[in-house]
């Protein structure tokens, strides 16, 4: 399974979310490859799940994967629930 985290610049918030997703995956006992990129490169990186903050996520819906939209980037509970839900859909 591949998860791609996107943000506007591909340097700041996407990397910070990626770190938290890796922690969440350990807690969920799920193995997945997690990467981050900027919005314009996202289309070229085929993934099962695309993650972004709310304003970014609305632009990820055409990429063909499941989109996880985060309201609050530093809320680990929201992240864990939404990632778990997305993984369920793939299974």
């Amino acid at each position, binding site marked *: 399974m591949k998860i791609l985290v996107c943000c506007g610049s591909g*340097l700041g*918030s996407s990397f910070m979310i990626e*770190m*938290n997703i890796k922690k969440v995956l350990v807690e969920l006992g799920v193995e997945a490859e997690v990467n981050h990129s900027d919005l314009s490169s996202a289309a070229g990186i085929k993934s099962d799940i695309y993650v972004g*903050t*709310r*304003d*970014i996520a609305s632009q990820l819906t055409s990429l063909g994967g499941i989109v996880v939209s985060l*309201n*609050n980037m530093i809320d680990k509970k929201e992240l864990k629930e939404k990632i778990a839900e997305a993984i369920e859909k793939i299974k």
Partner: protein
Amino acid sequence: MLANYIDERCIRTNVNCKNWQDAIRAGADLLLQAVCIEPRYIEAIIRHHRELPYMVIAPGIMLAHARSEEGALAVGISIITLAEPIIFGSELNDPVKLVITLATTDGEKHMELLASLMEFLMKEELVGRLMAAKDVAEAVTIIKS
């Protein structure tokens, strides 16, 4: 920890700003003085935010940054709290009270800074106290705790 990456000269509390552009300039100006960015980096942040207000990452928190090639000279971070919360045009996370400005050059130091920033931001109680800090000394104490 975050305290290892931030210079006290890059912290201001209760800054008076008229609007979001003003608030972005106030935070970025500290990095300009610290020679972490060129002036064009500030204009790039404002342009990105105008296109999409995605940098308001959590309730009350703006993580202002542009791309490294848009005028970042070194890894740096500044933190300002606003005297009055300001509307940044974020649907869910307005108004903003805390503006964190990052200068990002790619590489390991940048990654370590982001990791320690994330660690700090997830301590909700500390972030609340930082937003309410009366002066720079108090803000520094909170960041170091």
